[in-house]
């Protein structure tokens, strides 16, 4: 009986000491944003023709507050485009992936800013809490709050729902899908997902082969495959066929299949892995696909 009691006490002690969830986030802190002067790893490399003039780059901070916080968290954002035209332009809210900071994704944001022609569309990118210069610690609830704070800023600067497009890449597919399906400050009129998660449950079952509930290993509740069912606006999906992080069969195809409205476009890109889709597809073709979606749907 004594031994049983010791085992039970040890079980309770051990069963609360480790958490997997934090490992989803892979932020790196910075002391300043370097953008084009950043010499770390980036996912795509652009030539000088893609340089954005300093007059069209606006770095600022936002106050983000999730439902569990008593005070706001300061997060950093970069807008590419003319602030004075937000009340007329179409703006792409770019939700980056799970690693490092905005400098790593700066070439991707610049590439988006060349959709159609240079600075035809505005692009807003933020560093989620804990990333880059943003304060705080990453969390799933924080992702949604941070992107929503950015949408609130766009609305305050004159953007309307019909000119808001949200783009989610990899982990960024979670806030992009969530805030399109369950609108808060603004309701994006179009959704673009690149290499999205299906759900935390699929991540677990990909690893297990068995039908294992996600809650056996994680608190994450990301469920793009369910949330996308609520999306009524047009949807553009990119996924590399050689993606070895988020498999196209178990993640992307499920999300795409679950989109129930009629206006969807899919690009299943041969030989593209998780991080190199725009390069493998070709920058011009990638931009053309987005332009076609933005102008014809």
């Amino acid at each position: 009986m004594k031994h049983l009691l010791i085992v039970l006490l040890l079980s309770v002690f051990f069963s609360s000491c480790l958490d997997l969830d934090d490992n989803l986030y892979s932020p790196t802190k910075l002391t300043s944003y370097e953008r084009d002067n950043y010499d770390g790893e980036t996912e795509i490399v652009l030539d000088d023709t893609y340089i954005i003039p300093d007059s069209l780059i606006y770095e600022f901070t936002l106050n983000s507050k999730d439902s569990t916080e008593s005070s706001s968290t300061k997060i950093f954002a970069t807008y590419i485009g003319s602030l004075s035209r937000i009340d007329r332009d179409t703006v792409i809210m770019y939700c980056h992936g799970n690693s490092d900071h905005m400098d790593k994704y700066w070439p991707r944001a610049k590439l988006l800013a060349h959709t159609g022609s240079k600075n035809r569309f505005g692009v807003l990118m933020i560093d989620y809490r804990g990333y880059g210069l943003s304060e705080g610690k990453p969390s799933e609830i924080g992702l949604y709050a941070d992107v929503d704070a950015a949408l609130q800023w766009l609305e305050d600067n004159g953007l309307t729902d019909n000119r808001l497009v949200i783009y989610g890449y990899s982990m960024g597919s979670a806030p992009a899908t969530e805030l399109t399906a369950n609108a808060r400050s603004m309701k994006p009129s179009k959704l673009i997902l690149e290499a999205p998660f299906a759900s935390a449950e699929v991540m677990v079952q990909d690893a297990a082969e068995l039908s294992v509930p996600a809650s056996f290993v994680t608190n994450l509740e990301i469920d793009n495959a369910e949330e996308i069912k609520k999306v009524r606006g047009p949807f553009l999906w990119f996924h590399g066929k050689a993606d070895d992080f988020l498999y196209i069969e178990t993640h992307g195809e499920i999300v795409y299949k679950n989109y129930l409205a009629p206006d969807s476009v899919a690009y299943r890109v041969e030989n593209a892995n998780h991080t190199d889709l725009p390069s493998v597809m070709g920058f011009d073709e990638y931009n053309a696909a987005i332009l076609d979606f933005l102008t014809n749907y």
Partner: protein
Amino acid sequence: MIQCIFNNVKNSLKILNNMKIFYLLLTVIIVTLSSCAPTRIVKPLKKGEKTASFHFGGPIIRYSNFNIPVPFTSLTYAYGFTNELTLFNSLHTTTLLYKTVHTEFGTLINIYDPKCYGYRPWITISHVANILFDTRKYNVKYWPQLDINAYWHYKQKDNYFYLGLSNWFEFASHKAHEERQTDHYFLSPYAGHTFSGKKMEYTLEFKYLTPYISNQLSVVEKNSFGKKGVNGIYINITRKF
């Protein structure tokens, strides 16, 4: 030298950045749920005999340029109910660290006794109920398991060599998002050797996990003979009472 090793580890982690670390940990935890434990008991205990075992090891994965067994740990308590029937209970301590309780309740019965030492083995069957529940949402799952073992003694000595086949059954017809659950049987052959002393036993076991299921659809590189299955290595330390 130390700085060099430190830099290598740092570089490896950088390569593993993105979602790889998340997936690595996910796999480390999750595969312990799917028949990655060693065989608990192969040979029935004598009536009234008790043992406590510590199990260490798991499937071999490639990590930072090395092939390493995933360091799962679990504990087993066994009791000889009769000379032919042994009862046991195991607790997966690694899974417990991540807030999920995985326990096994099992029986081992002797089904064939050759009565003499020779080429004919003793044969035993083990029925196991794998019960898991998490402390997050209180989901509960049950997977039955059936193992068959054959073991050979070396003449009069207590040391023995064994072969076996383990099978987990997955009854669910669907996975997440109504996708079909295609695999319902998780068969894994194994071979091991037990060095038996008066008070202690030491076992080394090799297990070839699900040799017919592709190991390609995985972020974590698994060690195997080909593109299917995963090799596993386990060490058991048992104290007899």
